[in-house]
């Protein structure tokens, strides 16, 4: 059974539909990529899954249970964790304390009575490879490092579902390679990993499955190979290769039907 099911989720802001009947599912042990052009609704999807955004309609099921209207912190308690596209590190705390807070929150009341072992904090920092920054204030570290910090913080809760929003932007090439193998390891431990990412090399090399979102809809799902060969995806990313301008003077409504074939 799938760990997470996103079922016909619709999110509307005013008159604009950001997510339009999105539907996909995730399983443990796999890295899934969620890609699509800017503004396709990827981050909104994340917000719906983690409870920061109420969907206009549709359902989110986690572990067989409908969590559509569950508060974010209760989802976290059930093993969901995420990172943010626009960084949400605790800027006035040190990198170490960022992770410590996450562990404290994870342990809850029980944690107030017993000490969080420092080794656990250090192990998490080591794991994502930012131990050397442990004593820096979180608002003074480079973007890429801060993203890894958010990952360490997310891992503190020993999540079963990990949602990463553009985790590799700000990392250099070798860091990105390390990050890719870390992702494989994390999935190898049985986690479901969902990643919004623009670095296609990374997505194509680490993902087991990819869903492509375009103007709020899942327009394609499949393995990296299938996605790369998919014409609709190429259109979504690159626009039509059609040389003939479309002969129309007024605007047509957003189409939901088949898109005309591409001449390449």
């Amino acid at each position, binding site marked *: 059974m799938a760990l997470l099911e996103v079922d016909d989720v619709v999110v509307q802001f005013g008159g604009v539909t950001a997510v339009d009947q999105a539907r996909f599912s995730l399983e443990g042990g796999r890295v899934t990529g969620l890609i699509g052009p800017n503004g396709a609704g990827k981050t909104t999807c994340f917000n719906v899954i983690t409870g920061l955004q109420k969907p206009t309609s549709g359902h989110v099921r986690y572990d067989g249970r409908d969590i559509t209207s569950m508060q974010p912190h209760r989802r*976290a308690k059930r093993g969901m964790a995420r990172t943010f596209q626009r960084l949400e590190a605790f*800027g006035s705390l040190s990198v170490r304390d960022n992770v410590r807070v996450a562990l404290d*929150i994870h342990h809850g009341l029980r944690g107030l009575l017993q000490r969080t072992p420092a080794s656990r904090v250090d192990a998490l920092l080591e794991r994502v490879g930012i131990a050397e920054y442990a004593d820096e204030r979180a608002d003074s570290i480079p973007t890429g490092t801060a993203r890894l910090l958010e990952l360490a913080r997310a891992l503190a809760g020993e999540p079963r579902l990990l949602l990463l929003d553009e985790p590799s932007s700000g990392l250099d090439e070798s860091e990105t390679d390390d990050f890719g193998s870390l992702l494989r390891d994390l999935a190898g431990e049985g986690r479901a990993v969902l990643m919004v990412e623009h670095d296609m090399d990374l997505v194509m090399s680490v993902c087991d499955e990819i869903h492509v979102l375009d103007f709020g809809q899942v327009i394609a799902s499949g393995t990296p190979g299938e996605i790369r060969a998919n014409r609709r995806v190429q259109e979504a990313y690159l626009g039509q290769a059609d040389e003939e301008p479309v002969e129309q003077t007024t605007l047509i409504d957003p189409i939901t039907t088949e898109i005309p074939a591409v001449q390449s």
Partner: protein
Amino acid sequence: MSSLLSFTVLGIFTGAAYAIAASGLVLTYSTTRVFNVAHGAFGMVMAFVYWDFSQRQGIPAWLALGLVLLVVAPLFGLFVQRFVTRNLGDSPVSVSLVVTVGLFVGLIGFAQWVWKPEARSVPQFFDQAGFNLGDVFITYHQLLTILLSAAVAAGLFLLLNRTRVGTAMRASVDNPELLKLYGGKPGLVAALAWAIGTSLAALAGILLTPVIGLDYYDLTLLVINAYAAAMLGRLKSLPLTFAGAMTLGILQSYAVAYLPSSGDLSGLRAVIPTLFLFAVIILMPQAQLRVGQVKGIVSAPLPTVRRSVVAGGALVVLMALLTLSMSSSNILLAGTAATYAMVMLSLVLLTGYGGHVSLAQFTFAGVGALAWAKLDSPNLLGLVLAALVAAAVGALVALPVLRLTGLYLALSTLAFGVLMDKLVFQASFAFGFNGSLPAERLALLGIPVTDGGTYVLLMTIVFVAMGIGLLQLRRGRLGRILIAMRDSPAACGTLGLNMRWFRVGLFGLSAGMAGLAGALFAGLRQTISATDFQLLSSLPLLLLAVVCGVTSVTGAAIGGVGFMLLPVLQSNYPGLAGLAFVVIGFGAVALGRDPNGIANLLFALGRKVEGRLWPAVADRMPSLPSLPLPGLRREDEPVGKHRHVDQPAWRIDLTPDDTQVVPMEGVAGHGASRG
């Protein structure tokens, strides 16, 4: 029947004046995102200016009115927008609250200083003339007010919908950056909104003065009625604001007519707007967690345990020496300072660490004092119980507004303060109307601490213990979570923290600390009354806390002494009455963006002394041992290297979407490098 009608007319008249004030508030808030707590104070000062022009200087009423509404008020609004509230819209709500509360207190002080207290009256327009509608007499003043409110409504509608600058005002609510790209000037638009808003506050103040009198406080607090009305329109919708104002005016008028005018419920009439405000706030929908908020606040340095214990011990010893030589009146003052310092400590927790603003911290102290006097068990258990009662009340206040953002929490504390002031503290089951309660001094191990000096020493010890406890909390995991919550609520939520209860707990703890201070204060004074805990003292207290440094225990200690000295200064130098408030108010306006305050200047000075001067001095006098200066240095960082504390505090995070730096890759070499 005729009485119902006449009360309805009265209600519509009051409602019309509220509507004028409230629409000004909505206009300024919606165009600049700065909630002007001082809106009523603007109206008050302008009413005084009008009095000055028309009564003292004898300028004809219509000319005086024109001068105030079209010249003085708009210029004042422009000035405030340009030099005080500009760019505050992007700051944390706590900063804009502190700054406008600073204006609030500063303007009251200013008015008291310029227009010394004396009986003043402002006649109605057209004297008392009027006409009969059936058997109800309506004055032309009332009619004028109602007509003016209609004119204001129509004028604002035309301005916002039919003119380009009005359209630009609404556009700048949506997206000021985009307006600039169109070639519009959001700065000018904001200035215009403040000019008009101030003018409307002035008009409401002037219209209401003949009815409620020319008073520093009553006119200023009218702002609560305006808030209540504006809140119905969620600070956005002008039609709903007008509806709210009218409803409120009529409700209040009926309350005067039909609610008992004596007994415990008599205060109910005065708190109708407050109850209305509460009701509206509670009915507001849940605010969603937002990402991309403010983060990374630079706080005062955290001293080590050893250092704080040493500094605390030094304070206790100092106080012990002082109390030996003090007169009994000075001992009372020292005890008062200790009380204020403790209340300020509760603000260090709530505002300095937690980032929330309470506008009624003294009211919580009052609850503690009341509980202490009522419980009448002058021992440690009684003290703890009194604090617990205050904590429970604090939690109760925070409970309904949990779902909402900081602004509403702060406003509901203000409403709570008014409620307690007017309804509860004055009731027969509390202090009674203008009454007082006896309170006993704390007894330790069955021995009452009767000697004033010893009692003050005890209070100092409690302050030190609370301070050390607070620092301990800040160092520990609760403190870390507190800071984390302030930096990113969204991250805390998705990490599994139930912030609602945490916030209730934070509010309760802070109220409990204030309550403890109140209980000890009751014991110090031995008689205690409602006037000791007036809501209006809470505001300068908050400001002084910010000026002195609301992020540090040292700041609270300095602030406590400073706040105690205020009334002393005022009684010794009556000529300066009001001026102290001007200084604090405008001090907060100036320092509102840096809540580390004076204490931080001291820390910086201490570091400088240690880092630069002391080695130089020590070099020249090698025989002297190099003593550390207790309390003024942070130990966990080498002296002189640490610079970030001196940066502007409370800064906004400037990380837009596309700041990620993508590694440099040539187009052609791309495939090869990874392939």
